[in-house]
Protein backbone atom coordinates (compact mmCIF):
# COMPACT_ATOMS: atom_id res chain seq x y z
CA UNK A 1 0.00 0.00 0.00
CA UNK A 2 1.31 3.47 -0.83
CA UNK A 3 1.13 6.23 1.74
CA UNK A 4 -1.70 7.89 -0.16
CA UNK A 5 -3.52 4.58 -0.26
CA UNK A 6 -3.15 4.07 3.47
CA UNK A 7 -4.46 7.55 4.18
CA UNK A 8 -7.41 7.05 1.89
CA UNK A 9 -8.34 3.72 3.52
CA UNK A 10 -7.19 4.66 7.06
CA UNK A 11 -9.72 2.38 8.79
CA UNK A 12 -9.30 -0.59 6.51
CA UNK A 13 -7.69 -3.59 8.17
CA UNK A 14 -6.76 -5.65 5.13
CA UNK A 15 -6.22 -8.82 7.15
CA UNK A 16 -9.76 -8.43 8.49
CA UNK A 17 -11.05 -7.89 4.96
CA UNK A 18 -9.22 -11.05 3.88
CA UNK A 19 -10.79 -13.13 6.66
CA UNK A 20 -14.20 -11.69 5.87
CA UNK A 21 -13.71 -12.52 2.19
CA UNK A 22 -12.85 -16.12 3.04
CA UNK A 23 -15.91 -16.35 5.29
CA UNK A 24 -18.15 -15.04 2.51
CA UNK A 25 -16.70 -17.51 0.02
CA UNK A 26 -17.06 -20.39 2.52
CA UNK A 27 -20.69 -19.53 3.20
CA UNK A 28 -21.40 -19.07 -0.47
CA UNK A 29 -19.66 -22.29 -1.55
CA UNK A 30 -21.12 -24.46 1.19
CA UNK A 31 -24.64 -23.15 0.88
CA UNK A 32 -24.64 -23.17 -2.95
CA UNK A 33 -23.68 -26.84 -3.11
CA UNK A 34 -26.33 -27.80 -0.55
CA UNK A 35 -28.93 -25.51 -2.13
CA UNK A 36 -28.48 -27.28 -5.46
CA UNK A 37 -28.48 -30.68 -3.74
CA UNK A 38 -31.80 -29.92 -2.05
CA UNK A 39 -33.39 -27.58 -4.59
CA UNK A 40 -32.78 -29.60 -7.75
CA UNK A 41 -34.72 -32.70 -6.66
CA UNK A 42 -37.37 -30.44 -5.18
CA UNK A 43 -37.69 -28.55 -8.47
CA UNK A 44 -37.86 -31.80 -10.45
CA UNK A 45 -40.61 -33.06 -8.13
CA UNK A 46 -42.51 -29.80 -8.41
CA UNK A 47 -42.35 -30.13 -12.19
CA UNK A 48 -43.19 -33.83 -12.44
CA UNK A 49 -46.17 -33.67 -10.09
CA UNK A 50 -47.61 -30.64 -11.89
CA UNK A 51 -50.79 -30.73 -13.94
CA UNK A 52 -50.50 -32.72 -17.15
CA UNK A 53 -46.95 -33.85 -16.38
CA UNK A 54 -45.38 -37.28 -16.16
CA UNK A 55 -46.30 -38.03 -12.52
CA UNK A 56 -49.21 -35.61 -12.16
CA UNK A 57 -50.18 -35.66 -8.45
CA UNK A 58 -52.31 -32.62 -7.62
CA UNK A 59 -52.16 -33.24 -3.87
CA UNK A 60 -48.40 -33.74 -3.64
CA UNK A 61 -47.85 -30.82 -5.98
CA UNK A 62 -50.11 -28.60 -3.88
CA UNK A 63 -48.30 -29.51 -0.66
CA UNK A 64 -44.83 -28.98 -2.13
CA UNK A 65 -45.95 -25.74 -3.66
CA UNK A 66 -47.31 -24.40 -0.36
CA UNK A 67 -44.12 -25.42 1.46
CA UNK A 68 -41.98 -23.63 -1.12
CA UNK A 69 -44.17 -20.53 -1.03
CA UNK A 70 -44.13 -20.37 2.78
CA UNK A 71 -40.34 -20.64 2.95
CA UNK A 72 -39.95 -18.09 0.19
CA UNK A 73 -42.21 -15.59 1.89
CA UNK A 74 -40.27 -15.55 5.20
CA UNK A 75 -37.77 -12.64 5.14
CA UNK A 76 -34.27 -14.06 5.36
CA UNK A 77 -33.35 -12.09 8.47
CA UNK A 78 -36.33 -13.67 10.28
CA UNK A 79 -35.49 -17.11 8.91
CA UNK A 80 -31.97 -16.80 10.35
CA UNK A 81 -33.40 -16.34 13.84
CA UNK A 82 -36.33 -18.74 13.61
CA UNK A 83 -34.00 -21.44 12.32
CA UNK A 84 -31.61 -21.24 15.32
CA UNK A 85 -32.92 -24.33 17.19
CA UNK A 86 -32.98 -26.39 13.99
CA UNK A 87 -29.49 -25.21 13.06
CA UNK A 88 -28.15 -26.29 16.47
CA UNK A 89 -29.59 -29.76 15.90
CA UNK A 90 -28.18 -29.96 12.37
CA UNK A 91 -24.64 -28.62 12.80
CA UNK A 92 -24.18 -28.42 16.57
CA UNK A 93 -23.95 -24.64 16.66
CA UNK A 94 -25.95 -21.67 15.54
CA UNK A 95 -22.91 -19.44 15.27
CA UNK A 96 -20.23 -18.67 12.71
CA UNK A 97 -20.05 -19.91 9.14
CA UNK A 98 -21.45 -23.41 9.96
CA UNK A 99 -24.36 -21.79 11.80
CA UNK A 100 -25.18 -19.65 8.77
CA UNK A 101 -25.28 -22.43 6.21
CA UNK A 102 -28.55 -24.20 7.20
CA UNK A 103 -30.62 -20.98 7.10
CA UNK A 104 -28.93 -19.97 3.84
CA UNK A 105 -29.89 -23.32 2.30
CA UNK A 106 -33.44 -23.22 3.64
CA UNK A 107 -33.78 -19.69 2.32
CA UNK A 108 -32.32 -20.34 -1.13
CA UNK A 109 -33.35 -23.92 -1.96
CA UNK A 110 -37.08 -23.15 -2.46
CA UNK A 111 -36.12 -20.20 -4.66
CA UNK A 112 -33.81 -22.40 -6.71
CA UNK A 113 -36.46 -25.15 -6.88
CA UNK A 114 -38.94 -22.72 -8.49
CA UNK A 115 -36.33 -21.67 -11.02
CA UNK A 116 -35.58 -25.32 -11.81
CA UNK A 117 -39.29 -26.01 -12.23
CA UNK A 118 -39.61 -23.25 -14.79
CA UNK A 119 -36.41 -24.33 -16.57
CA UNK A 120 -37.93 -27.82 -16.93
CA UNK A 121 -41.16 -26.34 -18.26
CA UNK A 122 -39.11 -24.76 -21.03
CA UNK A 123 -38.12 -28.21 -22.30
CA UNK A 124 -40.03 -29.02 -25.48
CA UNK A 125 -42.93 -31.33 -24.59
CA UNK A 126 -42.41 -33.09 -27.89
CA UNK A 127 -39.01 -34.30 -26.73
CA UNK A 128 -40.58 -35.89 -23.65
CA UNK A 129 -43.28 -37.43 -25.82
CA UNK A 130 -40.64 -38.82 -28.18
CA UNK A 131 -38.81 -40.40 -25.25
CA UNK A 132 -42.09 -41.94 -24.05
CA UNK A 133 -42.76 -43.25 -27.55
CA UNK A 134 -39.34 -44.95 -27.47
CA UNK A 135 -40.35 -46.82 -24.34
CA UNK A 136 -38.38 -44.74 -21.83
CA UNK A 137 -39.27 -45.23 -18.16
CA UNK A 138 -40.07 -42.14 -16.07
CA UNK A 139 -36.61 -42.37 -14.49
CA UNK A 140 -34.95 -42.50 -17.91
CA UNK A 141 -37.05 -39.59 -19.12
CA UNK A 142 -35.90 -37.47 -16.18
CA UNK A 143 -32.22 -38.37 -16.22
CA UNK A 144 -31.58 -39.02 -19.90
CA UNK A 145 -33.86 -36.49 -21.57
CA UNK A 146 -35.33 -33.86 -19.26
CA UNK A 147 -32.25 -32.88 -17.21
CA UNK A 148 -29.78 -32.86 -20.15
CA UNK A 149 -32.21 -30.74 -22.17
CA UNK A 150 -32.74 -28.32 -19.28
CA UNK A 151 -29.05 -28.07 -18.32
CA UNK A 152 -28.51 -24.53 -19.68
CA UNK A 153 -31.65 -23.30 -17.88
CA UNK A 154 -30.63 -25.01 -14.63
CA UNK A 155 -27.14 -23.46 -14.80
CA UNK A 156 -28.69 -20.03 -15.33
CA UNK A 157 -30.93 -20.71 -12.30
CA UNK A 158 -27.88 -21.69 -10.22
CA UNK A 159 -26.17 -18.44 -11.23
CA UNK A 160 -29.14 -16.32 -10.13
CA UNK A 161 -29.32 -18.32 -6.90
CA UNK A 162 -25.60 -17.88 -6.19
CA UNK A 163 -25.96 -14.13 -6.53
CA UNK A 164 -29.01 -14.11 -4.27
CA UNK A 165 -26.94 -16.09 -1.75
CA UNK A 166 -24.24 -13.39 -1.81
CA UNK A 167 -26.78 -10.85 -0.59
CA UNK A 168 -28.15 -13.31 1.99
CA UNK A 169 -24.65 -13.81 3.42
CA UNK A 170 -24.53 -10.08 4.18
CA UNK A 171 -27.21 -10.69 6.81
CA UNK A 172 -25.46 -13.70 8.31
CA UNK A 173 -23.56 -11.38 10.64
CA UNK A 174 -26.64 -11.58 12.86
CA UNK A 175 -25.53 -15.08 13.85
CA UNK A 176 -21.88 -14.04 13.99
CA UNK A 177 -20.94 -15.65 10.71
CA UNK A 178 -18.79 -12.75 9.60
CA UNK A 179 -18.18 -12.09 5.95
CA UNK A 180 -17.88 -8.99 3.83
CA UNK A 181 -21.46 -7.90 4.29
CA UNK A 182 -21.11 -8.13 8.05
CA UNK A 183 -17.99 -6.00 7.90
CA UNK A 184 -19.83 -3.38 5.86
CA UNK A 185 -22.66 -3.25 8.40
CA UNK A 186 -20.57 -3.25 11.59
CA UNK A 187 -17.73 -0.97 10.53
CA UNK A 188 -18.90 0.85 7.45
CA UNK A 189 -22.39 1.65 8.70
CA UNK A 190 -22.43 1.46 12.48
CA UNK A 191 -19.00 3.14 12.95
CA UNK A 192 -19.30 5.49 9.98
CA UNK A 193 -16.12 4.08 8.41
CA UNK A 194 -17.01 4.94 4.84
CA UNK A 195 -13.73 3.55 3.49
CA UNK A 196 -14.52 0.07 4.88
CA UNK A 197 -17.98 0.29 3.36
CA UNK A 198 -16.55 1.20 -0.05
CA UNK A 199 -13.98 -1.59 -0.03
CA UNK A 200 -16.39 -4.32 1.07
CA UNK A 201 -19.11 -3.26 -1.34
CA UNK A 202 -16.56 -3.11 -4.16
CA UNK A 203 -15.40 -6.63 -3.34
CA UNK A 204 -18.99 -7.92 -3.25
CA UNK A 205 -19.58 -6.26 -6.59
CA UNK A 206 -16.55 -8.00 -8.07
CA UNK A 207 -17.75 -11.31 -6.61
CA UNK A 208 -21.18 -10.91 -8.21
CA UNK A 209 -19.62 -9.98 -11.56
CA UNK A 210 -17.37 -13.02 -11.46
CA UNK A 211 -20.26 -15.34 -10.55
CA UNK A 212 -22.37 -13.97 -13.39
CA UNK A 213 -19.51 -14.38 -15.84
CA UNK A 214 -18.85 -17.97 -14.80
CA UNK A 215 -22.57 -18.69 -15.02
CA UNK A 216 -22.91 -17.16 -18.48
CA UNK A 217 -19.91 -19.10 -19.74
CA UNK A 218 -21.32 -22.37 -18.38
CA UNK A 219 -24.73 -21.71 -19.93
CA UNK A 220 -23.13 -20.91 -23.30
CA UNK A 221 -21.01 -24.05 -23.11
CA UNK A 222 -24.07 -26.28 -22.66
CA UNK A 223 -26.40 -24.49 -25.10
CA UNK A 224 -26.87 -26.27 -28.42
CA UNK A 225 -29.76 -24.33 -29.82
Amino acid at each position, binding site marked *: MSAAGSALFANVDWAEIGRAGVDTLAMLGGSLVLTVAVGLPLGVLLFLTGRGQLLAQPLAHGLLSVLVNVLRSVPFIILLIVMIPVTVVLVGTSLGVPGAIPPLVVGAAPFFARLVESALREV*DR*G*VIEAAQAMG*ASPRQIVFDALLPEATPGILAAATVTAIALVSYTAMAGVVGAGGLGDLAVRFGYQRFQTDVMVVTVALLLVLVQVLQMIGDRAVAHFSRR
Partner: protein
Amino acid sequence: MIELSDIHKTYRAGSGEVAALRGIDLRVAAGEVFGVIGQSGAGKSSLIRMINLLERPTAGRVTVDGVDAASLDAAGLRGLRRRIGMIFQHFNLLSSKTVVENVAFPLQLEGRLSREDIRARALALLDRVDLADQADKYPAQLSGGQKQRVGVARALACEPKILLCDEATSALDPETTRQVLRLLRELNGELGLTIVLITHEMDVIRRVCDRVAVLEAGRVVEQGVVADVFLSPRHATTRRLIEEGGDADDAGAGGPGAGRTVRLTYRGETTYAPLLGRIARETGVDYSILGGRVAHIRDLPYGQLTLALVGGDVDAALAQFAAAGVAVEEIDR
Protein backbone atom coordinates in the same frame (compact mmCIF):
# COMPACT_ATOMS: atom_id res chain seq x y z
CA MET B 1 -51.06 -55.88 -37.60
CA ILE B 2 -52.93 -53.01 -36.02
CA GLU B 3 -56.57 -53.13 -35.14
CA LEU B 4 -58.61 -50.35 -33.63
CA SER B 5 -62.12 -51.34 -32.59
CA ASP B 6 -64.75 -48.80 -31.67
CA ILE B 7 -62.27 -46.33 -30.25
CA HIS B 8 -63.65 -43.34 -28.38
CA LYS B 9 -61.58 -40.57 -26.86
CA THR B 10 -63.06 -37.78 -24.79
CA TYR B 11 -61.13 -34.91 -23.26
CA ARG B 12 -62.24 -32.85 -20.35
CA ALA B 13 -62.12 -29.20 -21.29
CA GLY B 14 -63.08 -26.88 -18.47
CA SER B 15 -66.48 -27.96 -17.24
CA GLY B 16 -67.52 -29.76 -20.44
CA GLU B 17 -66.19 -32.63 -22.47
CA VAL B 18 -64.85 -32.70 -25.99
CA ALA B 19 -65.08 -35.87 -28.04
CA ALA B 20 -61.98 -36.18 -30.20
CA LEU B 21 -62.70 -39.69 -31.50
CA ARG B 22 -66.19 -41.16 -31.79
CA GLY B 23 -66.11 -44.80 -32.68
CA ILE B 24 -63.10 -45.49 -34.89
CA ASP B 25 -62.75 -48.91 -36.53
CA LEU B 26 -59.57 -49.44 -38.52
CA ARG B 27 -57.44 -52.38 -39.53
CA VAL B 28 -53.94 -51.93 -40.86
CA ALA B 29 -52.40 -54.98 -42.53
CA ALA B 30 -48.74 -55.92 -42.11
CA GLY B 31 -46.51 -54.24 -44.67
CA GLU B 32 -48.97 -51.66 -45.90
CA VAL B 33 -48.73 -47.91 -45.82
CA PHE B 34 -51.92 -46.64 -44.29
CA GLY B 35 -52.78 -42.96 -44.37
CA VAL B 36 -55.24 -41.04 -42.22
CA ILE B 37 -56.18 -37.69 -43.63
CA GLY B 38 -58.27 -34.97 -42.08
CA GLN B 39 -58.32 -31.29 -41.36
CA SER B 40 -56.91 -29.95 -38.13
CA GLY B 41 -59.17 -30.84 -35.24
CA ALA B 42 -60.47 -33.96 -36.96
CA GLY B 43 -58.80 -36.16 -34.34
CA LYS B 44 -55.81 -37.41 -36.36
CA SER B 45 -53.16 -36.85 -33.74
CA SER B 46 -55.28 -38.48 -31.01
CA LEU B 47 -55.90 -41.39 -33.36
CA ILE B 48 -52.23 -42.10 -34.10
CA ARG B 49 -51.39 -41.88 -30.38
CA MET B 50 -53.90 -44.64 -29.65
CA ILE B 51 -51.64 -47.11 -31.43
CA ASN B 52 -48.70 -46.79 -29.04
CA LEU B 53 -50.92 -45.64 -26.19
CA LEU B 54 -49.29 -42.24 -25.80
CA GLU B 55 -52.94 -41.44 -25.24
CA ARG B 56 -55.36 -43.94 -23.80
CA PRO B 57 -58.74 -44.49 -25.42
CA THR B 58 -61.76 -43.66 -23.27
CA ALA B 59 -63.41 -46.76 -24.72
CA GLY B 60 -62.54 -49.37 -27.31
CA ARG B 61 -59.81 -51.88 -28.04
CA VAL B 62 -56.34 -51.40 -29.49
CA THR B 63 -54.65 -54.57 -30.74
CA VAL B 64 -51.09 -54.40 -32.04
CA ASP B 65 -49.43 -57.49 -33.45
CA GLY B 66 -52.03 -59.66 -31.74
CA VAL B 67 -51.59 -58.08 -28.31
CA ASP B 68 -54.33 -56.13 -26.54
CA ALA B 69 -52.36 -52.99 -25.73
CA ALA B 70 -54.55 -51.97 -22.79
CA SER B 71 -53.81 -55.26 -21.02
CA LEU B 72 -50.06 -54.55 -20.81
CA ASP B 73 -48.42 -53.42 -17.58
CA ALA B 74 -45.94 -50.51 -17.57
CA ALA B 75 -42.97 -52.70 -18.56
CA GLY B 76 -44.96 -54.50 -21.24
CA LEU B 77 -46.11 -51.20 -22.68
CA ARG B 78 -42.52 -49.92 -22.83
CA GLY B 79 -41.62 -53.12 -24.70
CA LEU B 80 -44.45 -52.57 -27.16
CA ARG B 81 -43.41 -48.97 -27.73
CA ARG B 82 -39.87 -50.09 -28.56
CA ARG B 83 -41.34 -52.18 -31.37
CA ILE B 84 -43.17 -49.16 -32.76
CA GLY B 85 -41.08 -46.32 -34.18
CA MET B 86 -42.49 -42.82 -34.34
CA ILE B 87 -41.55 -39.64 -36.15
CA PHE B 88 -42.99 -36.21 -35.48
CA GLN B 89 -43.91 -33.00 -37.24
CA HIS B 90 -41.35 -31.02 -35.25
CA PHE B 91 -38.82 -33.87 -35.20
CA ASN B 92 -38.50 -33.82 -31.38
CA LEU B 93 -34.78 -34.50 -31.38
CA LEU B 94 -32.82 -33.93 -28.18
CA SER B 95 -31.04 -30.63 -28.70
CA SER B 96 -28.42 -31.52 -26.08
CA LYS B 97 -27.26 -34.62 -27.93
CA THR B 98 -25.39 -34.97 -31.21
CA VAL B 99 -27.00 -36.54 -34.26
CA VAL B 100 -25.44 -39.95 -33.62
CA GLU B 101 -26.32 -39.77 -29.91
CA ASN B 102 -29.92 -39.04 -30.87
CA VAL B 103 -30.07 -42.12 -33.09
CA ALA B 104 -28.38 -44.16 -30.36
CA PHE B 105 -30.80 -42.88 -27.71
CA PRO B 106 -33.51 -45.58 -28.04
CA LEU B 107 -30.85 -48.30 -28.01
CA GLN B 108 -29.31 -46.77 -24.92
CA LEU B 109 -32.74 -46.72 -23.23
CA GLU B 110 -33.21 -50.35 -24.17
CA GLY B 111 -29.83 -51.15 -22.58
CA ARG B 112 -29.36 -54.42 -24.45
CA LEU B 113 -26.30 -53.67 -26.58
CA SER B 114 -22.78 -52.56 -25.63
CA ARG B 115 -21.69 -48.97 -26.19
CA GLU B 116 -19.63 -49.91 -29.25
CA ASP B 117 -22.47 -51.90 -30.81
CA ILE B 118 -24.89 -49.05 -30.18
CA ARG B 119 -22.62 -46.53 -31.85
CA ALA B 120 -21.96 -48.84 -34.79
CA ARG B 121 -25.66 -49.43 -35.29
CA ALA B 122 -26.46 -45.73 -35.00
CA LEU B 123 -23.81 -44.90 -37.61
CA ALA B 124 -25.15 -47.59 -39.94
CA LEU B 125 -28.65 -46.11 -39.62
CA LEU B 126 -27.31 -42.62 -40.32
CA ASP B 127 -25.63 -44.01 -43.40
CA ARG B 128 -28.96 -45.45 -44.54
CA VAL B 129 -30.55 -41.98 -44.40
CA ASP B 130 -27.46 -40.39 -46.05
CA LEU B 131 -26.38 -38.46 -42.99
CA ALA B 132 -23.23 -40.33 -41.98
CA ASP B 133 -21.20 -37.14 -42.48
CA GLN B 134 -23.38 -35.20 -40.02
CA ALA B 135 -23.01 -37.67 -37.13
CA ASP B 136 -21.22 -35.37 -34.70
CA LYS B 137 -23.22 -32.24 -35.36
CA TYR B 138 -26.02 -31.03 -33.12
CA PRO B 139 -29.62 -30.99 -34.41
CA ALA B 140 -29.66 -27.18 -34.40
CA GLN B 141 -27.01 -27.26 -37.13
CA LEU B 142 -29.17 -29.32 -39.51
CA SER B 143 -31.89 -28.35 -41.98
CA GLY B 144 -35.49 -29.47 -41.46
CA GLY B 145 -35.23 -32.32 -43.94
CA GLN B 146 -32.02 -33.56 -42.34
CA LYS B 147 -33.61 -33.40 -38.89
CA GLN B 148 -36.52 -35.50 -40.08
CA ARG B 149 -34.14 -38.06 -41.57
CA VAL B 150 -32.39 -38.23 -38.19
CA GLY B 151 -35.88 -38.75 -36.74
CA VAL B 152 -36.44 -41.64 -39.14
CA ALA B 153 -33.06 -43.20 -38.30
CA ARG B 154 -33.85 -42.89 -34.59
CA ALA B 155 -37.31 -44.41 -35.06
CA LEU B 156 -35.75 -47.42 -36.79
CA ALA B 157 -33.03 -47.96 -34.17
CA CYS B 158 -34.82 -50.75 -32.31
CA GLU B 159 -35.84 -52.48 -35.56
CA PRO B 160 -39.56 -51.84 -35.22
CA LYS B 161 -42.15 -53.52 -37.40
CA ILE B 162 -44.38 -50.46 -37.31
CA LEU B 163 -43.59 -46.82 -38.00
CA LEU B 164 -45.98 -44.06 -36.97
CA CYS B 165 -45.65 -40.73 -38.78
CA ASP B 166 -47.28 -37.79 -37.03
CA GLU B 167 -47.57 -35.08 -39.72
CA ALA B 168 -43.96 -35.93 -40.51
CA THR B 169 -43.70 -33.70 -43.57
CA SER B 170 -45.95 -30.82 -42.56
CA ALA B 171 -43.06 -28.62 -41.45
CA LEU B 172 -41.00 -29.30 -44.59
CA ASP B 173 -40.85 -27.60 -47.97
CA PRO B 174 -42.21 -29.49 -51.02
CA GLU B 175 -38.86 -30.80 -52.27
CA THR B 176 -37.79 -32.04 -48.81
CA THR B 177 -41.24 -33.52 -48.33
CA ARG B 178 -40.76 -35.59 -51.50
CA GLN B 179 -37.36 -36.79 -50.27
CA VAL B 180 -38.73 -37.89 -46.91
CA LEU B 181 -41.73 -39.58 -48.54
CA ARG B 182 -39.42 -41.40 -50.97
CA LEU B 183 -37.38 -42.61 -48.00
CA LEU B 184 -40.52 -43.89 -46.26
CA ARG B 185 -41.52 -45.79 -49.38
CA GLU B 186 -38.08 -47.34 -49.72
CA LEU B 187 -38.13 -48.43 -46.08
CA ASN B 188 -41.60 -49.89 -46.54
CA GLY B 189 -40.26 -51.93 -49.46
CA GLU B 190 -36.89 -52.92 -47.98
CA LEU B 191 -37.92 -53.77 -44.44
CA GLY B 192 -41.56 -54.65 -44.94
CA LEU B 193 -42.26 -51.88 -42.47
CA THR B 194 -45.92 -51.22 -41.71
CA ILE B 195 -46.43 -47.46 -41.82
CA VAL B 196 -49.31 -45.47 -40.40
CA LEU B 197 -49.18 -41.79 -41.23
CA ILE B 198 -51.45 -38.89 -40.51
CA THR B 199 -51.52 -35.79 -42.65
CA HIS B 200 -53.75 -32.99 -43.86
CA GLU B 201 -52.21 -33.09 -47.33
CA MET B 202 -53.77 -35.26 -50.03
CA ASP B 203 -50.49 -35.15 -51.91
CA VAL B 204 -48.77 -37.13 -49.15
CA ILE B 205 -51.48 -39.79 -49.34
CA ARG B 206 -51.24 -39.92 -53.14
CA ARG B 207 -47.48 -40.38 -53.08
CA VAL B 208 -46.98 -43.08 -50.47
CA CYS B 209 -50.14 -44.70 -49.18
CA ASP B 210 -51.76 -47.98 -50.16
CA ARG B 211 -54.97 -47.29 -48.29
CA VAL B 212 -56.46 -44.20 -46.77
CA ALA B 213 -59.07 -43.30 -44.19
CA VAL B 214 -60.66 -39.87 -44.20
CA LEU B 215 -61.32 -38.51 -40.74
CA GLU B 216 -63.91 -35.87 -39.99
CA ALA B 217 -64.93 -34.76 -36.50
CA GLY B 218 -63.67 -37.96 -34.89
CA ARG B 219 -65.27 -40.36 -37.36
CA VAL B 220 -63.99 -42.20 -40.41
CA VAL B 221 -66.20 -40.93 -43.23
CA GLU B 222 -64.57 -42.80 -46.08
CA GLN B 223 -61.82 -45.37 -46.44
CA GLY B 224 -60.37 -47.61 -49.08
CA VAL B 225 -57.62 -48.09 -51.63
CA VAL B 226 -56.04 -44.72 -52.37
CA ALA B 227 -56.75 -44.77 -56.13
CA ASP B 228 -60.46 -45.44 -55.54
CA VAL B 229 -60.86 -42.78 -52.89
CA PHE B 230 -58.76 -40.29 -54.80
CA LEU B 231 -60.34 -40.72 -58.22
CA SER B 232 -63.92 -41.16 -57.15
CA PRO B 233 -64.35 -39.59 -53.74
CA ARG B 234 -67.79 -40.12 -52.26
CA HIS B 235 -67.76 -37.88 -49.22
CA ALA B 236 -67.79 -34.08 -49.34
CA THR B 237 -64.83 -33.88 -46.92
CA THR B 238 -62.74 -36.08 -49.19
CA ARG B 239 -63.58 -33.92 -52.19
CA ARG B 240 -62.67 -30.80 -50.26
CA LEU B 241 -59.32 -32.27 -49.21
CA ILE B 242 -58.56 -33.22 -52.80
CA GLU B 243 -59.44 -29.70 -53.97
CA GLU B 244 -57.26 -28.13 -51.29
CA GLY B 245 -54.37 -30.22 -52.52
CA GLY B 246 -54.80 -28.68 -55.95
CA ASP B 247 -55.43 -32.15 -57.34
CA ALA B 248 -59.04 -31.62 -58.28
CA ASP B 249 -60.06 -31.58 -61.88
CA ASP B 250 -62.70 -28.95 -61.45
CA ALA B 251 -62.64 -27.64 -65.02
CA GLY B 252 -65.75 -27.83 -67.13
CA ALA B 253 -68.20 -26.70 -64.57
CA GLY B 254 -69.94 -23.55 -65.64
CA GLY B 255 -67.80 -23.00 -68.75
CA PRO B 256 -69.28 -22.14 -72.12
CA GLY B 257 -69.59 -24.66 -74.92
CA ALA B 258 -72.20 -26.77 -76.50
CA GLY B 259 -72.80 -30.49 -76.33
CA ARG B 260 -72.30 -32.83 -73.42
CA THR B 261 -69.61 -32.62 -70.79
CA VAL B 262 -67.98 -35.80 -69.57
CA ARG B 263 -65.14 -36.65 -67.23
CA LEU B 264 -62.97 -39.58 -68.28
CA THR B 265 -60.79 -41.30 -65.70
CA TYR B 266 -58.01 -43.63 -66.86
CA ARG B 267 -55.91 -45.84 -64.67
CA GLY B 268 -52.79 -47.85 -65.27
CA GLU B 269 -51.56 -48.46 -68.81
CA THR B 270 -54.77 -47.12 -70.40
CA THR B 271 -53.47 -43.71 -69.38
CA TYR B 272 -50.95 -43.82 -72.21
CA ALA B 273 -53.18 -45.46 -74.85
CA PRO B 274 -54.04 -43.22 -77.84
CA LEU B 275 -57.77 -43.70 -77.31
CA LEU B 276 -59.14 -40.23 -77.65
CA GLY B 277 -58.14 -39.55 -81.26
CA ARG B 278 -59.20 -42.96 -82.50
CA ILE B 279 -62.61 -42.93 -80.87
CA ALA B 280 -63.23 -39.37 -82.06
CA ARG B 281 -62.44 -40.35 -85.64
CA GLU B 282 -64.51 -43.51 -85.59
CA THR B 283 -67.63 -41.93 -84.10
CA GLY B 284 -67.36 -38.53 -85.74
CA VAL B 285 -67.46 -36.78 -82.39
CA ASP B 286 -65.66 -33.47 -81.99
CA TYR B 287 -64.19 -32.66 -78.62
CA SER B 288 -62.72 -29.75 -76.75
CA ILE B 289 -60.61 -30.32 -73.68
CA LEU B 290 -61.89 -28.33 -70.71
CA GLY B 291 -59.41 -29.61 -68.15
CA GLY B 292 -57.30 -32.54 -67.21
CA ARG B 293 -54.17 -33.98 -65.71
CA VAL B 294 -51.94 -37.02 -65.90
CA ALA B 295 -50.08 -38.03 -62.74
CA HIS B 296 -49.29 -40.94 -60.43
CA ILE B 297 -50.90 -42.41 -57.37
CA ARG B 298 -47.96 -44.10 -55.77
CA ASP B 299 -46.75 -46.09 -58.83
CA LEU B 300 -50.08 -46.18 -60.62
CA PRO B 301 -50.36 -43.75 -63.53
CA TYR B 302 -53.75 -42.13 -63.94
CA GLY B 303 -55.33 -39.46 -66.03
CA GLN B 304 -58.45 -37.40 -65.74
CA LEU B 305 -59.86 -35.45 -68.66
CA THR B 306 -62.93 -33.25 -68.80
CA LEU B 307 -64.23 -32.96 -72.34
CA ALA B 308 -67.08 -31.19 -74.12
CA LEU B 309 -68.35 -33.50 -76.87
CA VAL B 310 -70.28 -32.21 -79.91
CA GLY B 311 -71.65 -33.82 -83.07
CA GLY B 312 -71.35 -37.41 -84.20
CA ASP B 313 -72.51 -40.35 -82.11
CA VAL B 314 -71.65 -39.29 -78.56
CA ASP B 315 -73.27 -42.36 -76.98
CA ALA B 316 -71.21 -44.71 -79.15
CA ALA B 317 -68.06 -42.80 -78.22
CA LEU B 318 -68.82 -43.08 -74.50
CA ALA B 319 -69.54 -46.79 -74.90
CA GLN B 320 -66.17 -47.26 -76.61
CA PHE B 321 -64.39 -45.45 -73.78
CA ALA B 322 -66.13 -47.62 -71.23
CA ALA B 323 -65.21 -50.74 -73.20
CA ALA B 324 -61.56 -49.65 -73.15
CA GLY B 325 -61.62 -49.53 -69.36
CA VAL B 326 -62.04 -45.79 -68.94
CA ALA B 327 -64.46 -44.61 -66.27
CA VAL B 328 -66.96 -42.23 -67.82
CA GLU B 329 -68.91 -39.73 -65.80
CA GLU B 330 -71.29 -37.28 -67.35
CA ILE B 331 -71.34 -33.84 -65.78
CA ASP B 332 -74.44 -31.65 -65.75
CA ARG B 333 -73.82 -28.06 -66.61
